[in-house]
């Protein structure tokens, strides 16, 4: 008996990304640069978050033609983003043969109440989360991978750090509880009890957990690995910088050798201009992407 699209096959695929970097790309040429630099996958999209932020308007799934061009350009897995709750966009991406779908707060949400029922799909999904409760709610909906939300398109890692720290703090808190205190904890986290129990027992999320949102330098990537993240998404940080080829390569090495300061120093040298970056305190509350999703 052969089974496709099972939980094991979905979460197992996410395991293969660990210790790797997933890069946002908007053209086949950028995808080739990412592959050459050693990316484990690329995220095909119409505009990088920094441009979405600058240009405004409704941000949607990328044109299937663009996604197909990117899929044809590289041999590594290709991911693509859909709007929160937009399961029709997800059906289109699954039909295209995209390897992973990111139900992303970077795009304009299509449903303010419901996320996609990800169990209904064979293709695996990754979702953003700011804390443990949000992560477990997404996993309960069928997400096979979690990433921090951070604050995409800012080149500022502070929100990703906040989300990673909060998630681990809550995991350690769950571990410290007595078994009979878990139902109250589940209520507080607004997460299903069976998943809360799993985390209590294992001391980690049941799926792979990556950093995302604001990673711009090799040191940012290494920092997130030290904070217990299992790999890194880089959005605007590479192709909005002065020398994308060099920076992409450096961030890949930084994730592999995150606890080897010698290598980190070597790869951080002379990378050209980083993306400019935005101070998050200066972004009005209602324009913060991390607030999207619930």
């Amino acid at each position, binding site marked *: 008996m052969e089974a496709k699209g*099972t939980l094991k096959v979905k979460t197992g*695929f996410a395991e*293969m990304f660990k210790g790797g970097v997933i890069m946002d790309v908007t053209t086949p040429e950028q995808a080739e640069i990412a592959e050459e630099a050693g990316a484990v996958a690329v995220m095909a999209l119409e505009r990088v978050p920094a441009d979405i932020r600058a240009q405004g308007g409704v941000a949607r799934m990328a044109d299937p033609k663009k996604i197909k061009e990117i899929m044809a350009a590289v041999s590594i897995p290709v991911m693509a983003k859909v709007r929160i709750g937009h399961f029709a966009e997800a059906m289109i991406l699954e039909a295209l043969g995209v390897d992973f779908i990111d139900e992303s707060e970077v795009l304009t949400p299509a449903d303010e109440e419901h996320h996609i029922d990800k169990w209904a799909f064979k293709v695996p999904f990754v979702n953003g989360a700011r804390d443990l409760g949000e992560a477990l709610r997404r996993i309960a909906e069928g997400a096979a991978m979690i990433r921090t939300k951070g604050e995409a398109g800012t080149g500022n890692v502070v929100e990703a750090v906040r989300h990673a720290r909060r998630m681990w703090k809550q995991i350690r808190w769950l571990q410290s509880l007595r078994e009979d205190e878990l139902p109250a904890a589940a209520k507080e986290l607004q997460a299903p009890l069976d998943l809360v129990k799993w985390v209590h027992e294992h001391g980690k999320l049941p799926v792979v957990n990556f950093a995302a949102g604001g990673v711009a330098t090799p040191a940012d990537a290494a920092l997130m690995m030290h904070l217990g993240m299992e790999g890194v998404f880089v959005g605007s940080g590479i192709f909005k910088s002065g020398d994308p080829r060099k920076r992409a390569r450096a961030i890949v*090495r930084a994730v592999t050798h995150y606890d080897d300061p010698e290598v980190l120093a070597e790869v951080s040298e002379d990378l050209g201009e980083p993306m400019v970056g935005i101070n998050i305190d200066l972004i009005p509350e209602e324009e913060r992407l991390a607030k999207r999703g619930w």
Partner: protein
Amino acid sequence: MIGILAVQGDFREHELMFQKMGVPTRRVRRAGDLAGVSGLVIPGGESTTIGKLAREYGVEEEARRRYQEGTLALWGTCAGAIWLAREIEGYPDQPRLGVLDMSVARNAYGRQVESFETDLEIEGFDRPFHAIFIRAPVITRVGEGLRVLASYRGDPVFLAGERAMVTTFHPELTDDPRVHASFVKLAEKGVSLKAG
């Protein structure tokens, strides 16, 4: 001591399996990490990434030297299998160790939606092994020094040689230590032969 190539991929899952079996392991990221290691596991992951990172900091070169010298056993799972193959169809320039006389085709079952799990009959195992195939390569040619221990849909998925093992599926994603135990035996044999 079993070394696990830890430049990218699911090396932690291999590590946990060996730990449960009481076998000491070491993460290998630079050539120096191979000292005192009798078997090297190359995990699942992205084969292009693993190939590039293993070439830097001398791991590839040292692994090749030690294998040819007869003091290092090798086991590649999925991406690791690609790394060991002499020929990768369509990607002649992809960085790899390439010491095993075999050819592979990457992602030959299709994209991720075609990934699957199934029960597999393996030669020498008394009951089937639950095998998970994720964007798996297909072994298209088995050359000298390698024997097929399991096939699926007519294609070999488990090969063994005197000092090497190849699986296109992921035993590290299961709770079943039998394939890991086979490799420990192979790696120990290499050491004792050398000592004798």
